[in-house]
């Protein structure tokens, strides 16, 4: 397709405010009379709260209130949970029992954060430690301490799905392998912690909320928990969010602060400090053990898989168990695998709660799938490129229905992998590996080819909870042309760096043929917003882009109707060019943009009958191919669009120290039509860096007594520019047939394939010495231990 603005190198609309320090983050929101919150947190993995004495805290000058769980839990409703487990109750503060070290027990409100911390130290809490469980596998054994005894078990969700003739395929296959891989507990850990400020207006009976938020249905959930009507909570979506990648959910923070603001009658702000964020911010990511069985033939054809995925969500659950659900929609990856058995098990332990992390469970699953493909290749002595190409869905096989009921929209996996191999200069990569090995070093090449499902339709909600019949996950856009002829696009969620303002302006500019630089894009608040969800699930290019395109087309249609009426010719004889409408052919009869706008705004007498005055249009878009409930055997169309990323990486390992170094990194990426290539590339580079962190550096580690060991940035190791290598990126474009411009999602790109590729490379490096490693992160200690022949 030939585009005017889409796909072109263009500066973003957002960057200028950030490079000048003029972003407006939640910590920049200062309300008159605002007070500050600090938290009292539990030091125990599990403990009953016997008593809380706040006198010494309240005696400090400038301290206004100490809120306990007892008071708060009686006054608010439990936060929503994504699966059907109503007795796993979760409140912002511990309700009589603290279930992990770092859980919030009381909140102190004071004139400054400094004073609030002084006071928090003086709150006396009597704890009675009780038995706790940290090991996910042991947590589901009989007799294990129960994290929520009322629930009756530590299992939050468990189901065995069978899609297709799994047993027959296993019986027919020439070979079978089984193995275990483990994805360690890490998260996206944005540089901005979560923060929220709230103010209650008693005259209007309205709670105003500014928050660092990326949470579907956030205003609704806040209102429900606070027992307020939805229209009594106004969330401002124009707060800049300092990174999220899934985790900025903050519902418990917001209910806490909203309650305090309403009760105390002054504005209240809580900005997590880094310790509160890491221990009690409830933003840890998947912590997953995969047991895989794979059945395949001698020629490398993979017939079937059985996957058991045990995920440790920690002590509470919001949407986190659903992170086992999203992978259902890409359970076979880019491969033609005829049948699958999938058993997701979501379990509770006495650890910090898990939250959504970039890819919503897909990256761990991709790591497991790619590990399987590599093992099959190794077992058969096949080349790892060849086995992938043998099993890839062919580009002429789309739309392609996978066993779990999802249809992939389009793709050209062979070409994307070839492009990545070429970008990596694969032949020279192999030579480098061999040269390193000859010189006594360990070197390995990793390849991964992974899918990014995009355009999230939240179909995992009804799949994992029969009581939940959600089948729409719309997004919307409002476009206004004002009297001056200037264009404003209104979006209905906040942004965390994904460039949505640029997206909307580019799409509106493309359809209306007007310069995007002249188009303003603003964020509504939740009371003025059109129905929308959240910039999650790689959905905004598809959903917000689609909504903006739909609204712009309605504007264009109105302009054409006005022109037809005023020029006295049918619309079929008109052509639209850069906002002006002319009669086709060289008649000279035309109406310009300014004239059309003026008619719409001022001259009702010249408007065609039936058309509203003014010039604005809204469009609410449903996810393409969404809208259905799952079948009885759990088949469902998950996300509509599927991007592919192929990673090729060379790793060198110092055999004496176990340190791994990324020597070369190339990525081939196909997300269909790119709206703004700089944004897509940036997201992908960042996703790769994030994946490098998960693969080699980052882990929320716990001591045997349930203390989080990596609770500061001194021990939770986010990679810097010195660890992340220069990356060669190469694009390919297979347009999606389901979207306006052929675009697919890319918000999770890079992260979905990097850990798999790096793990495969490390194992390729260790292979010659007969060692392997099956757990992320692959730290120097872990790698060295395997080199020494230690346990895997």
């Amino acid at each position, binding site marked *: 397709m030939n585009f005017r603005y889409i796909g072109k190198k263009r500066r973003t609309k957002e960057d200028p405010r950030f490079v000048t320090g003029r972003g407006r983050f939640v910590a920049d929101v200062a309300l008159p009379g605002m007070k500050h919150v600090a938290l009292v947190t539990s030091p125990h993995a599990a403990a009953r709260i016997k008593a809380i004495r706040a006198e010494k805290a309240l005696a400090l000058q400038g301290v206004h209130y100490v809120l306990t769980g007892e008071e708060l839990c009686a006054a608010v409703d439990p936060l929503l949970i994504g699966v059907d487990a109503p007795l796993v109750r979760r409140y912002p503060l511990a309700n009589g029992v603290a279930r992990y070290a770092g859980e919030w027990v009381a909140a102190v409100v004071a004139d400054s954060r400094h004073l609030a911390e002084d006071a928090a130290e003086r709150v006396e809490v009597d704890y009675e430690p009780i038995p706790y469980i940290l090991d996910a596998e042991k947590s589901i054994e009989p007799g294990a301490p129960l994290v929520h005894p009322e629930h009756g078990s530590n299992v939050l969700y468990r189901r065995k799905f069978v899609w297709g003739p799994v047993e027959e395929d296993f019986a027919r296959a020439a070979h079978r392998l089984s193995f275990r891989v483990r994805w360690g507990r890490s998260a996206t850990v944005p540089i901005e912690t979560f923060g929220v400020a709230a103010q209650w207006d008693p005259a209007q009976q309205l709670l105003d909320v500014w928050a660092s938020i990326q949470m579907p249905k956030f205003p609704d959930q806040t209102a429900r928990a606070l027992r307020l009507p939805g229209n009594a909570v106004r969330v401002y979506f124009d707060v800049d969010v300092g990174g999220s990648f899934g985790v900025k959910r903050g519902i418990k923070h917001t209910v806490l602060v909203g309650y305090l603001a309403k009760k105390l009658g002054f504005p209240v702000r809580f900005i997590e400090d880094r310790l509160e964020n890491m221990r009690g911010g409830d933003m840890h990511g998947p912590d997953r053990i995969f047991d895989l069985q794979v059945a395949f033939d001698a020629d490398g054809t993979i017939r079937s898989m059985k996957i058991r995925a045990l995920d440790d969500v920690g002590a509470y659950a919001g949407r986190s168990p659903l992170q086992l659900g999203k992978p259902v929609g890409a359970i076979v990856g880019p491969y033609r695998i005829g049948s699958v058995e999938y058993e997701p098990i979501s379990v509770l332990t006495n650890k910090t709660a898990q939250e959504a992390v970039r890819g919503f469970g897909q990256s761990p699953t991709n790591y497991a799938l790619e590990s399987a493909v590599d093992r099959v290749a190794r077992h058969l002595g096949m080349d790892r490129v060849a086995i992938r190409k043998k099993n890839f869905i062919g580009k002429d096989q789309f739309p392609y229905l996978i066993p779990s009921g999802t249809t992939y929209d389009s793709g050209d996996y062979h070409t994307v992998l070839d492009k990545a191999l070429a970008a990596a200069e694969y032949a020279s990569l192999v030579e480098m590996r061999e040269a390193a090995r000859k010189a006594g070093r360990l070197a390995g090449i990793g390849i991964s080819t992974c899918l990014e499902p995009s355009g999230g339709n939240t179909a995992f909600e009804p799949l994992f909870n029969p009581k939940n019949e959600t089948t729409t996950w719309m997004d919307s856009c409002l476009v206004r042309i004002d009297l001056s002829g200037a264009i404003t696009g209104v979006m209905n969620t906040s942004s965390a760096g994904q460039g949505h303002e640029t997206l909307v302006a580019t799409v509106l500019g493309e359809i209306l043929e007007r310069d995007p630089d002249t188009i303003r894009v603003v964020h509504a608040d939740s009371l003025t917003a059109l129905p929308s969800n959240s910039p999650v699930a790689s959905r905004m290019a598809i959903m917000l882009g689609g909504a903006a395109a739909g609204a712009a087309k309605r504007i264009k249609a109105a302009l054409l109707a006005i022109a037809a009426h005023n020029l006295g010719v049918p619309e079929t004889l008109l052509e639209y060019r850069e906002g002006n409408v002319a009669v086709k052919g060289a008649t000279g009869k035309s109406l310009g943009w300014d004239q059309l706008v003026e008619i719409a705004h001022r001259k009702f007498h010249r408007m065609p009958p039936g058309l509203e005055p003014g010039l604005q249009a809204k469009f609410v878009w449903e996810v393409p191919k969404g809208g259905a409930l799952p079948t009885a055997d759990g088949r469902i169309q998950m996300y509509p669009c599927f991007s592919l990323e192929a990673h090729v990486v060379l790793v060198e390992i110092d055999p004496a120290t176990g340190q791994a170094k990324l020597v070369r990194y190339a990525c081939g990426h196909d997300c269909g039509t790119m709206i703004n290539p700089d944004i897509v590339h940036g997201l992908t580079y960042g996703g790769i860096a994030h994946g490098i962190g998960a693969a080699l550096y980052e882990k929320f580690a716990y001591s045997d007594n349930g203390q989080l060991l990596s609770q500061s940035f001194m021990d939770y190791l986010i990679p810097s520019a010195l660890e992340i290598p220069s990356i060669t990126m190469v694009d390919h474009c297979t347009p999606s047939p389901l979207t306006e411009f052929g675009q697919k999602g890319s918000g999770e790109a890079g992260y979905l394939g990097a850990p798999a590729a790096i793990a495969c490379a490390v194992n390729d490096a260790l292979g010659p010495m007969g060692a392997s490693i099956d757990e992320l992160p692959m730290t*120097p200690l872990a790698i060295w231990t395997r080199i020494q022949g230690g346990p895997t």
Partner: protein
Amino acid sequence: MKAAPFEYFRASTLAEACAQLAEHGADAKLIAGGQSLVPMMAMRLARPAWLIDIRRLEELQRIESRNDPVSSADDVVSVGAAVRQCVIERDPLARASLPLLGRALKWVGHVQTRNRGTVGGSIVHADPSAEIPLVTCVLDAVLELRDAAGATDVPAREFFLAPMVTAIAPEQCLAEIRFPVWKGARVGSAFEEVSIRQGDFALVSACAQVALDADGKCIRAALGIGGASPFPQALPEIGERLAGTQLDDRTIVDAADAAAKLIDPDGDLHATAAYRRHLARVLVERVLRSAREDVR
């Protein structure tokens, strides 16, 4: 993550700082760059009632050579305790005379922390894996401690007692560090460490300085290991054993094996004791080879 309240006093002379320390005793802490102290105060792991700021004291900013042209003993370069790490990186005298310190600084933190952090601050903080303390021990530097009554010299090798614990008394201030500078020989040095990310605390570090005669025979060697004992550990006994050898590969391997037996590593989140012991052996071997090559 806000510090507990404290009072602040900016000293204008070293004597004034010492008087403040004498008055407040263990309730006071000195601050210069604050790059180790401030995070501990932010986490309220340290909560002094008084902070005495010595960062600007001219007396603590000097880098001086105290050569003795007559004596055959080592020359001395004295470094004021409040000299910032970034200054050492650029100072001509320090670069020429203390190459090992320069090599160590490449591993210390990042640009921003070296711009603020001081040589003395790192020593007094006494993290067992810190680079500058290790260099003071390996080179057998002398630390001059001042209090209201006067000055006391303590050898670096007797200063570090345990993690974050030193021989300094609450009323004392580290004033200067006197590094021996080896005279008249071909000297080479090396510093290596393993950390998970660049700029992190070392899991283990090692450094060495060797002097070779014209025939390549080792006439003097000093080495040590950081992060693998409760304090930075110089290994003079290994150094003595290397003197007189050709510093050939076999000798180096033996020295590394012997060094790894002398340490007392502990395990933590990032490294087990066994891994640290292994790394110590590997790194000693590497720094001895590199120091040897550095001469050539």
